[in-house]
């Protein structure tokens, strides 16, 4: 693979009217420095070489593109392939980005990295590369997420990271990001902010995308090899949007339907959801202009999702652009649908998807039966579900109290 040069964004990070750099002046020089360092790295073949080396030897890439035969049969429609990002070292696609950015931090001579995390997957992936590259690491995490993702908190601490609980606001990912930005403003000269998704100010949406496009580049080559043709559609979950942009991007110029699946939480009509593109309005949060969940006064709303990694009221600006331009479609599935899909994939394929990825599976399970048997669908399994086992058993407990059963597959 290579870091593809694309014509988006422009020099200040605009994807059409979206994106940009809405940050305090103190950080602007740091963003300029980062953009320059990245530009230089992109032109340096040894950077790409080193990146590829770690992806292969450390992450275990390429991740398989697996034909899900039983799932395909059970759903009775399109032939379904799973892009297995869950098999990466640390269990999710997040490591692709943290390897890339850690290499960049190293080039820039920064020995302290900070990160925000929701599900803890990005935090674990950051703590992991910090251990490997011998960097000091602080991970900001909302108290609510610390409760939901105990296992990942423990993993980060084992890896030597300092997990800083965030008690402001909704105590989830957006507040963790506020706190990470505050740390960065304070320690900007010595610290590298290792942002975990394709959000935030330019150049993050661009560079995180570029590091994650390895998913789509591989998937494209793999499907061509296995099926001799491109897929008809690709389905991926959207939190901030990094795994989805990573798999979509190399297919942008192909006749392939791209479908992003957001978290509808309790249902969009209840207001308790995280479906930013489906139900938000354009606004500015965390440095970028994009769709945003906000109230009538422009205050950011708390998102809701059973999946901590999707529980974010914003979304990366390139997705807003892809939505408005019509190139990608965005849909939403509820907590309950995601839980059912978790069960479905576990029972049919013996694969525990992350609750985030289960959202993609849930929509795929609705769509596949409407497609002919000669059609091809790829679902991005962005991560594995081990971290979610406690939340799932909690949710199942609640459901069986309510007299329902999750075991209906």
């Amino acid at each position, binding site marked *: 693979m290579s870091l593809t040069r694309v014509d988006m964004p*422009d*020099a*200040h990070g*605009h994807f*059409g*009217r*979206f994106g*940009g*750099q*809405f*940050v*305090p*002046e*103190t*950080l*602007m*020089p*740091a963003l*300029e420095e980062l953009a320059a360092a990245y530009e230089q790295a992109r032109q340096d073949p040894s950077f790409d070489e080193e990146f590829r080396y770690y992806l292969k030897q450390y992450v275990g890439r390429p991740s398989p593109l697996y034909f899900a035969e039983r799932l395909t049969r059970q759903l009775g429609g399109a032939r379904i392939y799973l892009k297995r990002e869950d098999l990466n070292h640390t269990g999710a696609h997040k490591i692709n980005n943290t390897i890339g950015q850690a290499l960049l931090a190293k080039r820039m001579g920064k020995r302290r990295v900070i990160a925000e995390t929701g599900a803890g997957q990005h935090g674990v992936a950051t703590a992991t590369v910090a251990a490997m590259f011998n960097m000091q690491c602080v991970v900001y995490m909302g108290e609510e997420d610390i409760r939901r993702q105990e296992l990942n908190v423990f993993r980060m601490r084992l890896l030597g990271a300092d997990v800083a609980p965030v008690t*402001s*606001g909704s105590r989830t990912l*957006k*507040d963790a990001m*506020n706190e990470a*930005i*505050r740390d960065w*403003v*304070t*320690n*900007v*000269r010595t610290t590298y902010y290792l942002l975990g998704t394709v959000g935030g100010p330019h150049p993050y949406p661009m560079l995180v995308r570029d590091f994650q496009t390895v998913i789509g580049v591989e998937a494209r080559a793999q499907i061509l090899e296995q099926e001799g043709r491109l897929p008809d559609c690709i389905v991926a979950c959207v939190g901030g949007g990094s795994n989805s942009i990573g798999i979509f991007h190399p297919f942008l110029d192909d006749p392939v339907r791209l479908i992003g699946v957001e978290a509808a939480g309790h249902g969009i009509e209840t207001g308790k959801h995280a479906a930013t593109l489906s139900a938000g*309005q*354009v*606004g*500015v*949060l*965390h*440095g970028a*202009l994009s769709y*945003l969940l*906000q109230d*009538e*006064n*422009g*205050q*950011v709303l708390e998102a809701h999702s059973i999946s901590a990694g999707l529980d974010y009221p914003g979304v990366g600006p390139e997705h807003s652009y892809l939505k408005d331009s019509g190139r990608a479609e965005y849909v939403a599935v509820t907590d309950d649908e995601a839980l059912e899909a978790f069960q479905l994939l576990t029972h049919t394929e013996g694969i525990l998807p992350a609750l985030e990825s289960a959202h993609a599976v849930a929509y795929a399970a609705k769509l596949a039966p409407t497609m002919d048997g000669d059609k091809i669908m790829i679902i991005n399994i962005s991560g594995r579900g081990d971290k979610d086992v406690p939340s799932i058993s909690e949710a199942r407990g609640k459901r069986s109290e309510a007299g329902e059963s999750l075991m209906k597959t």
Partner: protein
Amino acid sequence: MIEKQASAGTRIDRERVVDAGFRSETAATGSGNRIDAVFDRLRLKGRKGLIAYITAGDPGYEATADLVLAMERAGADLIELGVPFSDPMADGPVIQQASMRALAGGTTPAGILGLVRCLRRQTQVPLLLMTYYNPVLHYGLAAFAADAAAAGVDGLIVPDLPVEESGPLLTELQQHRVYLIPFAAPTSTPERLARAGQLAQGFIYCVSLTGVTGAREGLPPGIEEFMQRVRVCTDRPLAIGFGIASPVQAALMSKLGDAVIVGSAIVSLVEQYAAEREMMLQQVSALVGSLKQAISQVD
């Protein structure tokens, strides 16, 4: 509601046009903006200015109005009203919590503009709104500029809006002679400082340290050198803010600039005495008075 962002090229051209436009307007005194009038008066008297910040709506609009009038009487030369935002990424804990209290109390941008309208019947002190960009964007840039001007707002301070992104708002504000105050930070490159210096309306907000708002002790390292770097870039007044809490600090800092900005230290008193209005006004007045006295005694 939101300005369609043109390509980078067009945006830069627009900034140039805007830049040329207001420089000619403010080059001479008598711009009609209260901020210029106050800084002109201070300069003539050889005095330093005190800019006091409180979060609007904490603990209620009426208290905010009382505080503005009390702070003016106690010696504040300009007053900043914080528009509370759900995600105040440039603020430390004190202002974060004040913002949450104000939002919980139902404070809105429209309500704050109403408050300013009422205050304008009683005072001519320059009033600036310190607001994150999203509430303004959501209100509508043109509508906000028009309503702010009509209410009697003199300037906007938008901490998450660097010059690169400020074109659309600047265009609207300029039509109403409301200023957009630029920032200078210790990390700003010479090119960035030069640009801020050229674009500056009213004054330049010099962030004394790399960090968020909040009281600190002593003087930040490198502050003198930083202020000198800003000074050579502009003939506009320089106001220093972030971390200034005590009269001693204010006195030292005021030597380096034309005004000092004090926020969290005042907001802490508002929080502490929220339940006793008279006591709150007395305490805040006493702090503002001692800050003003401290910066006035500079030789």
